[in-house]
């Protein structure tokens, strides 16, 4: 069953055609990498899939629901329930501790549960950092925290835009290890990356060029 289906999706920013007639399906449990040059439309695509923007044209079906015509409020609800987001810039709240940064996602979703949050921190190896503020964490730790936050509400789809863009190799590998675990547990993951090395960990690599989908191949063949 496909968790995500895009049909002829186009996105216009004024005169700029950021995406042109993209059609793409992602099966449940799949790990897809999206690659492309800067400005090719990767983030634009993630914003549409992540319910943060509406496509100008085309249909987007997420978990069986057509989201292409929904308004901001409904999109917020769907994003909250189905999407886990991981960012290149981490985007942690500076005045909240590690555990609070994860709990706030639970709070907006349903109910903050400190015990569950601590288990999530344990999973990404941050138990000993629970009471620390983001600025007291290393880049790799911040990204792991960001992942813990993305996972806390059991999203149907994990979207990561350049999750390793700010990390060194060892931290990159830690993050990839976590992705492998999630993948093994059946999570659906879409990762935007510039790094062929990171893309190679996925099952499928989709390439964009000037807003067009130019190739969609299994990762082995991508090498």
């Amino acid at each position: 069953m496909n968790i995500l289906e895009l049909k002829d999706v186009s996105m216009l920013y004024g005169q700029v055609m950021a995406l042109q007639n993209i059609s793409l399906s992602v099966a449940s449990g799949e790990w897809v990498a999206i690659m492309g040059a800067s400005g090719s439309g990767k983030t634009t695509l993630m914003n549409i899939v992540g319910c943060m923007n509406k496509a100008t044209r085309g249909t987007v079906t997420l978990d069986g629901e057509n989201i292409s015509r929904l308004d901001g409020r409904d999109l917020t609800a769907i994003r909250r329930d189905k999407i886990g987001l991981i960012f290149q810039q981490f985007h942690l709240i500076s005045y909240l501790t590690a555990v609070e940064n994860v709990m706030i996602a639970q709070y907006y979703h349903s109910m903050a549960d400190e015990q569950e949050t601590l288990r999530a921190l344990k999973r990404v190896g941050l138990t000993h950092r629970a009471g620390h503020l983001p600025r007291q964490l290393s880049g790799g730790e911040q990204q792991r925290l960001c992942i813990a936050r993305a996972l806390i509400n059991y999203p149907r789809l994990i979207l990561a835009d350049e999750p390793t863009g700010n990390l060194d190799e060892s931290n990159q590998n830690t993050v990839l290890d976590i992705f492998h675990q999630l993948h093994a547990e059946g999570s659906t993951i879409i990762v935007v990356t510039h790094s062929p090395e990171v893309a190679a960990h996925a099952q499928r690599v989709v390439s964009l060029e000037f807003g067009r989908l130019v190739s969609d191949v299994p990762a082995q063949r991508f090498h």
Partner: protein
Amino acid sequence: MTRQAMFRRIVLSSLIRRRSRMLVALLAVLIGTTVFLGMGAVYYDIPRQMGREFRSYGANLVLVAAGGGSVLKLEEARRAIALLPVDKVVGATPFRYETMYYNKQGLTVVGTDFSAVRKTSPYWRVQGEWPQKDDEILIGADIAEHTRLYAGSFIALEVSPPKGRKIKKEMKISGVVHSGGAEDGFVLMPLAGMETLLGAGGTAAVVEISIAAASEEIAAFSAAIQAKTPGLTPRLVKRIADSETTVLSRLQALIFMVTGIVLFLTLICVGTTMLTVVMERRGEIGLKKALGADNKAIIFEFIGEGVVLALAGWLPGLVSGYFFAQMVSVSVFSREVDLPFFLVPLTLCASLAVTITASLLPAAAAVDVEPALVLGGE
């Protein structure tokens, strides 16, 4: 963890862990509360304080004999005063005018009650002492200058009583009075002393009364006296009574304005801080939205921060406001102010109104932040 507990945790963390940012806003609320409380206390107290002060600034009701007579009976004046509410009568002073001679020169000598004069004419300044005995007198500053007499000197006054021969009486000058008015050219002696010299006890030319009440009320008193004591004609001392009310209401208007301006400045200061904060926190707001927060949740968080800010500034503001009120009251009225309790919740409401209003602007700005801004580089 309950929603409220988490909400509190978010709001408090935001304020406490970014305290350097919020310090200005906090200070603004504190100063606003201080001024509001201080000015509020003074505003509320002014009619009472100023009433006392100003009405004692000279008499505002004068009793004279009815029908153009020059002598009134003190007994009658006492009956008239008995018509007034006791707690509003600051003082009532009889004045009797006679002519006496010093070195063949005629002087106006005023017989009066010095303890009452000090209430109805508190602005008189006496160099030396107020008279204690019946043969002690005050001389006006102008007379002191002409005669080169001073406090402690003796003066021989000649009087011709209506019956009998001239009397020469030596009096002790206990002090020199500076009133800035006619008294500077008079000699003042105790009424009792004058009565022993001249007879005709229990009379006076005028009785000046100082009443702590608004001018309309005094007019009503005057009418009552007119009706009940036919031997007397009450006269309102209009000029003073009116200027009092004007000064009073102008002062209150001034305080009102100052308080309003300070509250407005507080609003601007808190609002600017909050707005700056929103600009700085765009990323955070976008993130919260990306995490699924709706506009309502974000607005509530800002208002929550405003409420905590109001409470945190209000509590110390109460203390400093109390001292501010005392300071103003002591320096302006020379007495301590009674802080009416209702000002305490009122200042809280004012603080809350200011900070909540100030948070609405940034809250509105926060609504426009797009969650999409969190993705990608930046």
